[in-house]
């Protein structure tokens, strides 16, 4: 990330979002809203003295990067390796930004005078030739499955939360501990939470089996606990992935094939008292089991971002039935969209792990570069064309185009089709009441000729033409 931040040809705009896209391949105009971080980026060097000096002596607010398991102050660095290495102020938590009545010790502590409470939101426009949409995913909200007890039982965690627990730079410096500070002696890892599920998301999220195995290994390594993985199928298709699974089998992790029906604290046997009980059918053996554990980890799946509909609309791309952005062809064109010049990279297009994302991103980057280097695009000839001698500016066509490819030329008082945006659907051709728009290669004359040709000759009873 640091390399990307330093590269002279790369302008990194963080804490920003795209608000509008107009234009077409080779000629996009993108409006970007830069949200204020209340710190001047070119002055801050990431010394973090402002954080120490903050009027909050103790970190008090949930740290998003630590999945809420750790705390931060209103002035903070998002995470240790953040690029750029610049702090930001949380406008919902910082006393100065909320009330204007703070001693501003952070600002005093900064010898570069980098803190700027007056910083405002700024909108810039950039002219670009291609766009790569790499907006990632969200994790499934485990609270949607009340029978797994997330949010109800304190020792039910999501996979990402346990990632932070096992991490040396996490809130517990790598100690896997329960909410009361003790180490778990038994841990259940439930696969496919919010995946392969007719009631929530039908797709397989692709990464969870591997990360569940990783967590099983890390938890066992850090705590020595008995680990149970409850799975439907074990999906480990990548390079060395099957070997990793074998390793876990050899480590004594117990694998139970069965979708977990319930996580409950209702004990019916003495050994279940004070524990969380996993109820699942062990389908390979054919019995329903109750397994008491100290800690439950929910391997939550991947979902499209909650605003994917608006983002798709803004970039003029479509979404697949599952809500991830739609690739131009499921086998042959994985990084292109049906909108020329807009590419997809990573989980925005569908769940995938890091090696696959790197490959996907490389493909998107090279297609974008190749397009820019060519300097010209080949477009489909089956586009619509307005005959200016016939167009009478009724404006019926303007609202029917799915791509806003028809604009009204006020000087000439006629409608006009942008060849680069037109995808050749023919909707405007059918709508025009004056037959002023021709659909090249699917013209009225051509289709009428087909109708007349087909019906000109009679068919025999057997269907053969005489």
């Amino acid at each position, binding site marked *: 990330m640091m390399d990307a931040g330093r590269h002279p040809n790369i302008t990194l705009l963080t804490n920003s979002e795209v608000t509008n896209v107009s234009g077409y391949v080779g000629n996009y105009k993108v409006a970007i809203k830069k949200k204020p971080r209340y710190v001047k980026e070119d002055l801050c060097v990431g010394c973090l003295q402002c954080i120490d000096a903050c009027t909050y002596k103790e970190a008090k607010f949930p740290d998003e990067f630590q999945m809420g398991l750790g705390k931060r102050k209103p002035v903070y660095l998002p995470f240790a390796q953040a690029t750029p290495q610049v702090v930001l102020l949380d406008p919902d938590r910082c006393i100065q930004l909320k009330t204007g009545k703070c001693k501003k010790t952070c600002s005093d502590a900064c010898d570069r005078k980098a803190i700027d409470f007056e910083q405002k939101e700024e909108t810039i426009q950039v002219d670009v030739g291609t766009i790569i949409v790499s907006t990632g995913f969200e994790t499934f909200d485990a609270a949607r499955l009340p029978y797994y007890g997330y949010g109800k039982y304190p020792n039910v965690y999501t996979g990402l939360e346990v990632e932070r627990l096992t991490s040396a730079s996490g809130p517990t410096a790598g100690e896997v501990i329960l909410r009361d500070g003790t180490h778990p002696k038994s841990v259940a890892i439930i696969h496919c939470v919010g995946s392969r599920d007719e009631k929530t998301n039908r797709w397989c999220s692709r990464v969870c089996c591997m990360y569940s195995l990783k967590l099983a290994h890390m938890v066992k390594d850090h705590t020595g606990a008995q680990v149970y993985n409850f799975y439907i199928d074990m999906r480990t298709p990548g390079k060395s992935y099957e070997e990793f699974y074998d390793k876990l089998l050899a480590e004594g992790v117990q694998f139970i094939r069965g979708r977990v029906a319930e996580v409950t604290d209702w004990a019916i046997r003495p050994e279940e008292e004070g524990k969380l009980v996993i109820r699942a059918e062990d389908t390979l053996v054919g019995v329903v089991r109750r397994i008491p554990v100290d800690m439950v980890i929910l391997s939550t799946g991947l979902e499209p971002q909650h605003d994917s509909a608006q983002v798709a609309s803004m970039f003029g791309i*479509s*979404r697949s*039935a599952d809500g991830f952005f739609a690739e131009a062809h499921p086998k042959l064109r994985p990084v292109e969209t*049906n909108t020329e010049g807009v590419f997809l990279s990573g989980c925005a297009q569908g769940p995938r792990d890091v090696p696959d994302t790197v490959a996907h991103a490389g493909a998107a980057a090279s297609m974008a570069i190749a397009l820019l280097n060519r300097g010209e695009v080949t477009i489909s000839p*089956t586009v619509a064309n307005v005959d200016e001698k016939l167009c009478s500016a009724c404006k019926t066509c303007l609202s*029917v185009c*799915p*791509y806003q490819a028809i604009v009204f030329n006020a000087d000439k008082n006629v409608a006009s089709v942008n060849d680069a945006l037109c*995808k*050749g*659907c*023919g*909707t405007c*051709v*059918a*709508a025009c009441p004056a037959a002023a728009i021709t*659909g090249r290669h*699917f013209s*009225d004359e051509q*289709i*009428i000729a*087909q*109708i*007349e040709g*087909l*019906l*000109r000759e009679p*068919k*025999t*009873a*057997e*269907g*053969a033409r005489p």
Partner: protein
Amino acid sequence: MNFEPRIIAFLCNWCTYTAADAAGVARMEQPANVDVIRVMCTGRIEPMFVLKAFAEGADGVIVSGCHPPGDCHYTNGNFKTFRRMPLLGTVLSQFGIDKGRFHWGWISGAEAPKWAELARNFTDQVRGLGPLNWKDQIASKED
């Protein structure tokens, strides 16, 4: 000679045409009565095409494309279709053409069996309605 209906089907390239193609490749049973005209999107289909087909001698007409709201390859070409087709259906009835001769709907590229079934059922339905022979309508039945 037994009457065999002539049916013209306007199909969108990405969905129903693909389904019809797949049905053919899979050798699903379909009558030879249905002739297909491919367009890129059902949004291209104007009422004029359907009227022309009947005027030229078709006994039945099918219009089929991608399922709304999300399947259209061009995002929402099929929205224009479901705005136009009901109105056309009413006008065809006012022309005295039985509603059973005009079918419009949605079949996705993965639904080849559904296409074959539509081709069979619609052909039977139109056969039951008899020949339309529209050209004879104005070939002066003056007595």
